[in-house]
């Protein structure tokens, strides 16, 4: 067995598959996942039919259904993934099997990798079995294969990031409960906290700018904005950006010329700024006709989802390296450089 094969298929992976799939929890989790995803799909579809019918065209219906489904899937995985990985190492510690692994020739990194691979395989299984539900979107149109693939990629990378972060907490925390709480906290920060950051600390731009400003780069850690841009094929406006020099009268607004077309911004009743395209009747993500590339900032020229994937991969890599450094029982480095005083001679 060569090194690559051994890394991908070490005994930990095989053991994890075997033990995980023998419990009632895995089939139950799969069933609940499918029922919830199918249920939300049906509920959204029914609600859209009741409220708008097919009046706005089946393409729009398909697009909105896809938007709800993909966001709900990310939310579901944000609940499932920490539970899968937060006990990966701390569970071994609590079961008192970690020392037994440390005295085998398996490297600590392989232990982490095996745990991650097994957990991520289960997440991959969940994503695969959700494909038939997503394929229903094609019945209505409005969403092409590229959108589906890129949305699934973002979702998978999000789950992977949450998994890697969960294992990192599991490595440093002795108790699974503490690691689970910390992992859910991290999931909230990554998914919602970064979005909140954009709302509280938006990018400040002059209203006369000629390009559509991007929200702060940190907001792209969250998959929500990238998934919205993928699903709707338009950039998100009115979020993460604060316009200066807005027309104080709230009149016709100030004309911007963004990459995709004309845009108007005006003061909103709550004191903020609302921007809308000149070609769409609705503000926000339901605009159409705008380019989905980021036009300013760190990721200028990138698609939102590309920036998100890269940032999440960086976080995953950092979490993986951190776990690999912290796991070995005898570390090559110490946080505290000062040694304890020697005991007094008897």
């Amino acid at each position: 067995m060569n090194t690559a094969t051994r890394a991908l298929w070490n005994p930990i992976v095989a053991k994890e598959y075997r033990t995980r799939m023998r419990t009632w929890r895995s089939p139950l989790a799969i069933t609940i996942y499918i029922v919830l995803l199918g249920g939300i799909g049906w509920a959204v579809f029914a609600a859209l039919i009741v409220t708008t019918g097919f009046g706005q065209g089946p393409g729009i219906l398909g697009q909105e259904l896809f938007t709800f489904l993909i966001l709900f899937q990310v939310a579901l995985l944000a609940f499932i993934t920490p539970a899968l990985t937060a006990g990966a190492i701390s569970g071994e510690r609590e079961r008192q099997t970690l020392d037994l692994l440390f005295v085998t020739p398996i490297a600590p990194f392989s232990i982490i990798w095996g745990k991650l691979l097994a957990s991520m395989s289960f997440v991959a299984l969940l994503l695969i079995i959700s494909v038939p539900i997503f394929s229903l979107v094609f019945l209505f149109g409005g969403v092409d294969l590229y959108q589906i693939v890129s949305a699934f990629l973002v979702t998978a990378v999000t789950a992977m990031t949450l998994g890697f972060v969960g294992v990192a907490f599991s490595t440093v925390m002795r108790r699974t409960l503490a690691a689970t709480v910390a992992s859910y906290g991290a999931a909230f920060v990554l998914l919602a906290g970064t979005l909140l950051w954009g709302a509280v600390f938006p990018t400040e731009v002059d209203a006369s700018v000629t390009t559509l400003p991007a929200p702060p780069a940190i907001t792209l850690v969250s998959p929500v904005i990238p998934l919205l841009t993928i699903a709707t094929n338009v950039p998100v406006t009115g979020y993460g950006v604060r316009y200066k020099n807005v027309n104080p009268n709230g009149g016709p607004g100030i004309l911007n010329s963004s990459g995709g077309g004309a845009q108007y911004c005006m003061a909103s009743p709550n004191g903020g700024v609302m921007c809308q395209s000149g070609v769409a009747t609705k503000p926000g993500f339901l605009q159409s006709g705008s380019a989905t590339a980021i036009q300013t900032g760190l990721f200028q020229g990138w698609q939102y989802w590309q920036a998100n994937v890269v940032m999440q991969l960086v976080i995953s890599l950092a979490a993986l390296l951190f776990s690999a450094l912290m796991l070995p029982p005898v570390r090559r480095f110490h946080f505290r450089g000062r040694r304890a005083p020697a005991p007094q001679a008897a």
Partner: protein
Amino acid sequence: MIAVEDLTKIYGNRAALDRVSFEVPEREIFGFVGPNGAGKTTTLRILAALLQPTGGKAFIDGSDVTKDREKVHTRIGYMPDFFGVYDQLTVAEYLDFYAACYRQPKQRRRKIVDDLLALVGMTERKNQQVDSLSRGLKQRVCLARALVHDPAVLLLDEPASGLDPRARVELREILRELQGMGKTIIISSHILPELTELCSMIGIIDHGRMRATGPVHDVIARLTSGRRLHIRVLDEKDAALEILTPLPSIRHVEAVNGTIEAEYDGDEQTASDILLALTQAGIRVSSFAPADGGLEDAFMKATSEDVG
């Protein structure tokens, strides 16, 4: 085979191990004795390369446990003082998993598992779930797990704790068999009489310091300077005490629950002289036997005072 030199481990301001040294030659069973918190587990974890010592050195088969960890791991079989079993795995799968972790080829693993199960007498339970086994059977499985890569050295931390007498006897037999197979074994235990029977060498540790180490009988002889006798007499206990007390070889004598316990200096000739003194005085002796305090006495003495 195993050499420990001035091993020291310090946690904060407390020395868990303070310059501990001992050696275990090949194919010996070394009993590691000490009260709770004495440093036995710490020593074994350092020998298993699971813990970095603060000072000193330890070698397994010539390999430094702090530098050649991978090599040390291939040479040792470590059995901690807990079971460490997985749910949802059968006995055979459990052993197969660890054999795979030790990179045993897949085609060999089935034979390894079968051989080990036969060795620990668990062949008929190979398809039983590990977590459903009794404590004694789990202990056997864990011993088998420590043997999956055929190590030369076994580090067994309290393997007999919590076992019923029958399971202890069976474990002792298995360990003897392993010694016969050429294994060098370090076994920590609280059950002192068993160690006397099983071990050829012993180390007594207390408060992180090695109080005595060497061949079992040497350690006992060194620590128990006076020999003891248990004497039973028929209705003349007070008279017997009057005769024994003034004898020059007697260090201490007292009646305990109908038996006279006499501590004396000397050898078997001295013991026979004591018996002769009693019988010549007309005391009818019904029982006269050396008290086998042995390791227990040595342990109590070693852990109650500083013997260096």
